[in-house]
């Protein structure tokens, strides 16, 4: 009983935040759909699901997301091995670079991709523009970093000795990987895959921009129904489909993730240099670098173009308010706003995420307790699977009366971004926390350490790197978040993606050049912050 109370106490804050800023707004919008004109009408919602178009849309969403997730895993897992278990020059820079796609606004990535694969682009001969293949490539571009970082964080501190023992007993590298390493990594891989799948299934800009409007996903359809047609019944029907699908996904992944004994020995030995046997990792990293690097290179070269020549004019213009004062604030000021918002979103999602991760990974003594923990675990993944417009409109109609009058609050933007980042944070922390042997905590406790001290001496040393990885994620998500932010942003303090969107949406060569230059600045800022975060090391922790 005391354990359950303690669990409830720890979970109370995250639950309250989720309840107010997610459950309430989303149910508000669903209610608008089900109670059309004041009468409860679930039949109309069911009718929407029977439409051939709806079924086509659902089918496309499922197969494109599955394919993109599979590709991201195939590339990401070997790349994670090379980038987190091997030592070579430029490793930190490469890891930072691979996180860049995460923060680039989709509208800019769309432009960069299409400049490469469009009819007039250098890869135009492939005929890739407007195909489903281009959509999948775009999804992988955005999400491969999730796999690399989440799996890498778990792999980094994995004890190498069992694998070495297996190898010395005569197992080949493939056999060692399949029988020793893979089972140990399974929780992290399944976690990453489920997050990537949710990101892909709710992708919005990529599907429209790269698919040439021939494809619709559930997310684009909800956007169209809500913002253009105001057909809330149909939107509610599709939102229900999203919610059910996510719930099913979460049940499946929690089964797959569960291993008989999650406890893992941790060690942080100095990684060896790259050897011949690492070719799968090298190949994967090369492929990822090409996939991520080409569009970024296209961006950089576009931003340096001035008329028919080259120059830095677009960058110099960033401190102004645009040609013809197209912007209310200089881009530099928007960058400051973005960074400050990202700091807020990061500490919010880290704080909440840590609480959630602790709650869901502690050993359960009874079945009810275990159920309660896994229910909580799933609950915090839901924000990833619900459309940003549903949430955005929901904010407006439900959070408008005291005591919950947050409609005009400056906090709404960082909170929304923190909610988007939260599942990533939890999924990065939980597998590692779950791998800590509970007996270590018991030993610490029996030696007289309080709960806090136990956490600091037992959990934190192992958690340190995953915490940094999670902080990086949250920061990057916040810097690049567009959907919810564009819905909530106030005009007097726009973030970078909003300003970039504004610039690229107006004619004039200068505006276009500035939009690309601003994207490069955003990307570079992210890369630098990531590099700095990775440098934050604690000597004592490293020696643990």
């Amino acid at each position, binding site marked *: 009983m005391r354990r359950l109370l303690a669990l409830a106490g720890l979970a109370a804050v995250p639950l309250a935040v989720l309840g107010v800023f997610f459950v309430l707004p989303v149910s508000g919008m669903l209610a*608008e759909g089900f109670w059309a004109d004041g009468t409860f009408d679930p039949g109309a919602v069911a009718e929407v699901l029977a439409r051939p178009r709806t079924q086509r849309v659902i089918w496309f969403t499922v197969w494109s997301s599955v394919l993109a997730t599979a590709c991201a895993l195939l590339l990401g897992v070997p790349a994670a091995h090379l980038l987190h278990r091997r030592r070579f020059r430029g490793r930190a820079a490469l890891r930072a670079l691979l996180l860049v796609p995460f923060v680039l606004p989709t509208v800019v990535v*769309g*432009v960069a991709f*299409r*400049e490469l694969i*469009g*009819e007039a682009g250098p890869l135009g001969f492939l005929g890739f523009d407007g195909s489903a293949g281009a959509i999948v490539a775009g999804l992988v571009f955005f999400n491969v970093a999730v796999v690399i970082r989440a799996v890498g964080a778990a792999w980094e501190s994995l004890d190498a000795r069992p694998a070495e023992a297996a190898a010395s007993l005569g197992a080949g590298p493939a056999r060692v990987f399949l029988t020793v390493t893979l089972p140990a990594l399974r929780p992290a891989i399944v976690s990453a895959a489920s997050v990537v799948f949710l990101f892909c299934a709710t992708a919005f*800009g990529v599907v*429209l*921009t790269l698919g*040439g*409007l*021939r494809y619709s996903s559930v997310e*684009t359809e909800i956007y*169209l129904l809500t*913002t*253009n047609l*105001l*057909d809330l019944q149909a939107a509610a029907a599709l939102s229900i489909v999203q919610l059910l699908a996510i719930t099913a996904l979460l049940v499946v992944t929690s089964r797959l993730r569960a291993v008989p004994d999650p406890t893992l020995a941790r060690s942080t030995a100095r990684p060896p240099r790259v050897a011949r046997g690492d070719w799968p990792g090298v190949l994967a990293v090369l492929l990822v670098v090409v996939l991520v690097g080409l569009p970024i290179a296209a961006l950089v070269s576009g931003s340096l173009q001035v008329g028919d020549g080259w120059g830095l004019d677009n960058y110099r213009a960033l401190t102004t308010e645009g040609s*013809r*004062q*197209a912007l209310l604030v200089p881009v530099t000021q928007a960058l400051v*706003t973005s*960074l*400050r*918002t990202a*700091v*807020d979103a*990061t*500490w919010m999602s880290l704080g909440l995420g840590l609480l959630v991760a602790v709650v869901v990974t502690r050993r359960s003594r009874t079945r009810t307790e275990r159920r309660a923990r896994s229910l909580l675990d799933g609950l915090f993944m839901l924000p990833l699977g619900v459309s940003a*417009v549903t949430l955005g*409109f929901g904010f*407006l*109609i439900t959070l*408008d009366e005291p005591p919950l009058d947050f409609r*005009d*609050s*400056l*906090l709404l933007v960082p909170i929304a971004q923190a909610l988007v980042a939260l599942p990533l944070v939890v999924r990065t922390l939980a597998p590692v926390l779950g791998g800590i042997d509970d007996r270590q905590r018991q030993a610490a406790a029996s030696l007289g350490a309080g709960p806090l*001290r136990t956490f*600091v*001496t037992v959990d934190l*040393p192992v958690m*340190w790197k995953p915490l940094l990885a999670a902080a990086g994620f949250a920061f990057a998500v916040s810097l690049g978040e567009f959907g919810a932010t*564009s*819905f*909530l942003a*106030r*005009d007097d303090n726009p973030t970078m993606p909003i300003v970039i*969107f*504004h610039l*690229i*949406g107006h*004619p*004039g060569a200068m505006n276009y*050049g500035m939009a*690309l230059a601003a994207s490069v600045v955003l990307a570079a800022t992210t890369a630098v912050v990531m590099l700095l975060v990775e440098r*934050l090391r*604690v000597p*004592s922790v490293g020696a643990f």
Partner: protein
Amino acid sequence: MRSVRACAPMLALALAATACSTVGESSGSEEPGDGATPTEVVLVTHESFALPKKLVRQFEEQTGYDLVVRASGDAGVLTNKLVLTQDNPLGDVAFGVDNTFASRALDEGVFAPYDAPLPEGAEQYRLPGDEENALSPVDNASVCVNVDDTWFADQDLAVPTSLDDLVDPAYEDLFVTPGAATSSPGMAFLLATIGAYGEDGWQDYWASLMDNGTQLTDGWSDAYQVDFTQGGGKGDRPIVLSYDSSPAFTIAEDGTSTTSALLDTCFRQVEYAGVLAGAANPEGAEALVDFLLGPDVQAALPESMYVFPVDASVELPQEWAEFAEQPTEPLTVDPEAIAENRDEWLREWSDITSR
């Protein structure tokens, strides 16, 4: 000791976080209590809204109210927000609902009647069907097919002039337009074709358009900046859907524009301002609508929002006066018909274009 050292960087992070955060700052806007005299006017608008700071200060000095701008989303998002929040409106004034969405907002009773005095020449932009004059036209911009004149001169090909030309095989694979379902100018172009070929004729026209190799994109920036030959990315299609003002932004070194708008292919979008029903500060709201219609804001519209003023007496910027020609007889569709058929038309359009 170890634990203390482990905590130090965390503490540093936490300190850095509080120093850089936005949370600590007060928002600066005081909430007026019930019954107190309102001190601010809240303008709800779309993300393209921009006014020079000087004009905002001018309004605040003239009226004594603080102007709070809440801008986000496009015209469709704005309209639907207003409809969904009409019981507890987001502000006092809405600006940016256009003639393709205005009927929905009017039918839902989002706006309170306020018959603002219109500037010279603005009467023609009134929304048909708005009997109470709840909406005041503030600006207009026409969506027109644009062509790259230099490309056609280089190829020795006659420049197309009409919608019919776009389905001529001579112009195969040359046209790019944003889609109607995802883009507001794209929707305006669909309406232009409905205005030209009738409610039963546009479907065949679009089928021929697609057969002639028309490329569809997600939004305006993709079509113009990536695929258009005169866009930022130097694409390979010399015919694009854009605005009547766009030629003013493609001026070459010799002082002439490299592009022009085809004035027989245009659909005019008019943006309206109106006082919201249930506004907390109706007097301030009316003052703001008047201000938007005043000569200073009207003159600033082209430079800050890329649109034409409704006030005929306002002098346009030089490039606009020279290169941005407005259509005299744009194609039209009744706003009520748009409100009624939008859903159906978009569905038919999606079917035709994804075949």
